[in-house]
């Protein structure tokens, strides 16, 4: 026989071994905390977005310049869009998401722009619940854009029909363009900003009578979302006559009902 008696060298048993329970409780707490965090993140509305500042360089672009637009927004996790278009010398229109630079700063480039063009752009942020929230409109003239010349070109009687467009309406804008000389160019420029992000810039102008022009906002686009309720539209006419004198109508807006 070998061992028949308790060993005197055995260490005393600790009075309590609660580390297992503590570990389990801690684990449960972590699981619940992470689960709560996931639910909170997924279901709670994000903080209201804000556009703090929009800057661009060069301040007065020349022909061939590329305009760099930088926007500062909060919170920094947003998707920031820039919509823009130009008229007179180039028919550029477009936009999209700006590139994040970090620290809530986003950047996009426009151009190169042509001599005599006028560039119009707006920065927007939106979430599924809030927005779109828009920056101030920025209109830049590239090089020499003749305005208020002796030919007296002007755009008036700008009318939106229907005045309060709803989702299924096909709104049409008409305007009268007057000049003492021949009118060589009339453009209808429009931008749309949708809730949840997205939009576009485009527009078509048709001459519907002597001096009378009509513009529309194009199709609703993929998924038919272009005329959803709450979509914000901006539009204006731009015209030029044979002397190179130009005129633009005021930037006008409507929100789809």
């Amino acid at each position: 026989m070998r061992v028949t008696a308790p060993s005197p060298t055995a260490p005393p048993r600790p009075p309590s071994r609660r580390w297992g329970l503590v570990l389990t409780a801690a684990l449960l707490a972590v699981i619940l905390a992470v689960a709560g965090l996931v639910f909170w993140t997924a279901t709670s509305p994000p903080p209201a977005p804000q556009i703090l500042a929009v800057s661009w360089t060069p301040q007065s672009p020349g022909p061939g310049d590329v305009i760099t637009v930088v926007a500062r927004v909060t919170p920094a996790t947003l998707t920031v869009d820039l919509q823009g278009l130009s008229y007179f010398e180039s028919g550029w229109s477009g936009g999209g998401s700006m590139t994040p630079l970090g620290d809530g700063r986003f950047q996009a480039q426009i151009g190169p722009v042509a001599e005599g063009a006028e560039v119009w752009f707006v920065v927007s942020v939106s979430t599924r619940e809030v927005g779109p929230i828009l920056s101030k409109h920025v209109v830049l003239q590239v090089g020499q854009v003749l305005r208020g010349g002796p030919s007296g070109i002007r755009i008036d009687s700008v009318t939106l029909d229907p005045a309060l467009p709803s989702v299924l309406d096909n709104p049409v804008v008409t305007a009268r363009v007057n000049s003492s000389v021949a009118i060589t160019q009339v453009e209808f420029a429009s931008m749309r900003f949708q809730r949840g992000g997205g939009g576009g810039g485009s527009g078509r102008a048709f001459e519907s009578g002597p001096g009378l022009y009509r513009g529309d906002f194009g199709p609703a686009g993929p998924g038919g979302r272009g005329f959803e309720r709450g979509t914000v539209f901006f539009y204006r006419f731009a015209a030029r006559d044979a002397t190179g004198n130009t005129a633009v109508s005021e930037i006008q807006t409507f929100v789809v009902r």
Partner: protein
Amino acid sequence: MQAMSAATERQLRRRYWWRLEVRPLIGLTIVFLFVVGLSTFAYATLSPGILLWSEVAWIALQVVLLFWIAVYAVVEYALWRRTRNVGHRLQFLGSSLILFTPVGIYVPLLLGGWSATFSPPGLMAALCSMVSFFLGIVLALLGYYARRFRAGDLNLFRNLVVREGERIEAVTDGYSERPLSVTYPELHRAGAQEAARAWAGTLGKAGLLLDHRADDAGITVNPVTYTGVGTFRVLDALRFLSSVRRHPERLTWVRIGWDGRVSVHLSPGDYERTGRPVAYHALAAAVADAMVSSLLAFAEGDSEGSAAVLLGHVRGPLNPVRLPGPWAGRLGLAAAAVAALLVLTGVSSALLAVALSPERQPQEILDVRVEPPHPLPGQNVDVYANLPGYDAFSLVIDAFDAIVLAAFNATDASFREMRHVEGTTFGARLGAFPDGTEVTFALHARLRRLGMGGPPTETTLWTPPQTLAIGRVLREGPSGLSLGAPGHDIGATGNLTFRVRVDTTAAVEMVQVLAYVESRPTNLTTGFTYGYGASAFWVNLTALAGQYTAELPLFWSLPGDRTVFTVRYKIVARDTTWNTATTGLLRLEVTR
């Protein structure tokens, strides 16, 4: 016989650890990397045919791994139920949690699509899966390696027989089937039976005894004698579990009679594991000695000592033997509660994600309604419809239009885009029509659902055509205007020619065909349908040889292509009494 020195013990433990644990692990890793590497190589570089093989190989590997883990879980469960050892319980819980991992991720994905996966409950299920995976690994390793859950590493690398064999210096004999019987007068003490039952239960929980059976004459115990690392131990354990249930006499057993007589049987496998031709009777006597010593130590209140005897342990302040106490049971219970909570939360979240997924909505256009239901002349006609699941993560709407074919006092063949109004509701304005106009419309959607690694699934939806009479449209008047069955063919020009017979007692004023044509070109070489086109137009039919005919131009198709044209059309006629007739919306398909 004498206790081994600590140095010898450490040396032996290292040897077994290397042979039974590290080497198989390295081998498994090499095989795993080889298979994965081969699959990845094939996946990245070889032709689509091979790519399928690599996918199959990869899936097979995953299935094998999961199957193995499932077997492991079952075995550990059986071991836990039989021994009540917490280490086995933790390993069972750990392997079960690892098995749950794909459930929380793949159930929402496969049954509810990407929308379910990225919904809040889907993310919760994925989170539970990830936590389960890591917690499962922790629990399984803890249950396997932590010495607090067993008396020692006896069943990890060596068993009782092997240890006793190692302690015998003289190697003089071979194996025998005959059980050895020895008598121990010390077992004639009062309370020995109760002590023996408690001893067997306690050592079972300590992971030293696989099973015990007590009766009026004595108690029979089966010491744990399977060895090896987790992966390979499973097969051994399965065999032992099966034997202990059906043929316990074939395993190593020790029968302790209340009369002091002790019988020992060593299984051939256990004898072989000693690795040396030790005398069978000496080995069996050593095992009997160890078991009785253990029982007597336990009966005298030294639980740790009773385990130390079986372990051949060199005890001391720095090398204590500890049995898992009540705290281990509570820990096992808590781990089970956490695991159950995780699995329940994960499964319910996954099922909720599936149930709420917009991708489970049927793909159809529902609730088509016209506003106003009975439009007056000059009044805008709007059509609304629901497209369930349109906002699903993986659904792309390529087109959603209202096809409009208007005839008589206004003629129009065109399509209007359906705009998103709110929720799943879309709408389009068909327009305002003058009195005496008949408007037929149908809604048409082309949808693409993105696949999970495969090509997208395309769906084309059509609603049944609806016809609206704006104001008064004269039908079946006294002139008896009627249209015969229309015919069609593709003429020499490649255009589609329509023919129809018109009967009336009055003069025919006009006959028109209004059509909406879809075209799908397929390259004959590749068999790939690469495009889609649609157009709507109307054409007047002219009288020719007793019938009215018209040619409808079809889009050209490229050389080497075969284009299928689907034409939805209606032919309308009106005579001088303003009586009207129509064929209704018909459908034909031509291939060019």
